[in-house]
């Protein structure tokens, strides 16, 4: 009990004991891994061959379907990252990462961890977020020289601040066409030296200090107010971000999100809404790392507020290559 108390208080001495034992145990484990690999492979072949064949067929079909979408998505991501960088906002692209391979699953039934083949020698530290190709999968909890343990997002001890991005149910405001006399002209917007208009287009030549004079073509309906209505998205129609805490609930059970603001209405959350990490100085992960989507909204009685069940985008039962972001949260670096 003394040792348990020491370890729960993050004692340095228990960490040293773990590290020392890790040094002794690691070679034994590696030898045993080599020796038992054929047995493990035989077991997997016996148990999972049919599933693998079915999955392979299904994945081939999915790959064919998604090839086109991937190109468009990659372009959007690139554009988004450029915009974020342009505005000085943090992006994942700006954080270095280490690629690691899963070399072992948890040997117990009461923890959700995997072992990876990179450790402190590669710059990995406790608390760093871990992703796979789909999204966030967990965080580093123990680091040795050339290996580390990663607690999965489904472990009941895992908690992360997240935001739910959903669209407001309010309808956009459609403004009537402005009277021509009230319509702002380009002249009032730009410092204009010479303006000539035609019936179809308005051509404005501008001279702005530092710029080579150019030509800007503006569609007539914008300049004249025209006959078209202008749809203005009200602020609340833009993506609404509800902040909450994601908690793991063990294997085979979906993680949940509890809201920080108990007044959040369940009707404001849509099934399928994406869940991303909230970020912030004390968060375990940088902002906007994809975690999952809302699969069910559970309304609770009283003032407790709704709880969301989450479908994780990463398949935690089939992890192979992972990416450890070299981003250590302040809360973990203090330890």
């Amino acid at each position, binding site marked *: 009990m003394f040792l348990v108390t020491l370890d729960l208080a993050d004692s340095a001495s228990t960490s040293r004991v773990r590290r020392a034992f890790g040094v002794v145990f690691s070679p034994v484990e590696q030898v045993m891994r080599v020796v038992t690999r054929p*047995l493990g492979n035989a*077991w997997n072949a016996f148990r999972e061959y049919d599933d693998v064949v079915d999955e392979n067929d299904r994945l081939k079909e999915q790959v064919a379907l998604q090839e086109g979408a991937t190109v468009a998505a990659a372009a959007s991501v690139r554009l988004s990252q450029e915009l974020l960088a342009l505005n000085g906002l943090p992006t994942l692209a700006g954080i270095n990462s280490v690629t690691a391979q899963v070399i072992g699953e948890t040997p117990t039934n009461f923890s959700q961890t995997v072992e990876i083949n990179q450790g402190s020698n590669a710059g990995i530290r406790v608390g760093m977020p871990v992703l796979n190709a789909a999204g966030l999968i967990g965080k580093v909890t123990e680091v040795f020289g050339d290996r580390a343990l990663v607690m999965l997002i489904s472990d009941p001890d895992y908690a992360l601040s997240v935001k739910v991005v959903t669209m407001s149910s309010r309808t956009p405001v459609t403004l009537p066409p402005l009277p021509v006399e009230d319509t702002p002209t380009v002249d009032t917007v730009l410092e204009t030296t010479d303006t000539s208009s035609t019936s179809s287009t308005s051509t404005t030549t501008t001279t702005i200090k530092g710029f080579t004079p150019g030509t800007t073509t503006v569609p007539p309906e914008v300049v004249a107010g025209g006959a078209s209505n202008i749809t203005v998205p009200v602020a609340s129609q833009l993506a609404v971000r509800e902040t909450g805490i994601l908690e793991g609930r*063990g294997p085979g059970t979906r993680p949940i999100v509890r809201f920080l603001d108990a007044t959040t209405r369940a009707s404001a959350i849509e099934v399928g809404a994406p869940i991303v990490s909230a970020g912030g100085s004390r968060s375990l992960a940088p902002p906007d790392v994809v975690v999952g989507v809302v699969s069910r909204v559970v309304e609770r009685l009283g003032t407790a507020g709704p709880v969301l069940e989450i479908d994780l985008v990463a398949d935690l039962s089939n992890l192979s290559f992972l990416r450890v972001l070299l981003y250590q949260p302040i809360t973990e670096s203090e330890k």
Partner: protein
Amino acid sequence: MFERLLRVVASRWFRLVLVALVVLALQTTLFSQIRPFGYAVQILAVFVACAGATHSVQVGAVVGLVSGLMYDAVLATPLGLTALVCGAVGALAAVLVQPFRDPAWWMRVLAASLAAAFGEALLPVMKSVVGLGGWLQFRIVGVALVTFFGGLVFALPLLTVTRWTLRERIGRGD
């Protein structure tokens, strides 16, 4: 000095550490992959229970504490938690066979399997006691059942291993 070192190396407790290292390596490699119905067979718990079933309550408890401490060192659980549980497993296995004057091999196998299954059910309870909640779920029943049947399969060879590991050589000062 050298003779004392030799005595330590030749002692059954030193042998226990070496054998437990191998069993632990089996647990973290082969038995973390082989998961009947999604549950890992806890071969280390069966090993500890076998030590209790072939020896006394004290020996069972000490083997459990040592093996559990080693298990804790490779897991992310608080150091000492699995040691407590494994200590209880070793002691329970010994208590289960104590009423019998000369228990048959199958009684020891049964006792070891029952004790190991009990240990698997006890672990989430102990985790909750120290504040690591969330594991008290219905799946404990599945985990205990898989460990029990795993014990029935693996206890017999492990009984032989624990007998060899913990045998005392008369006159060697163990």
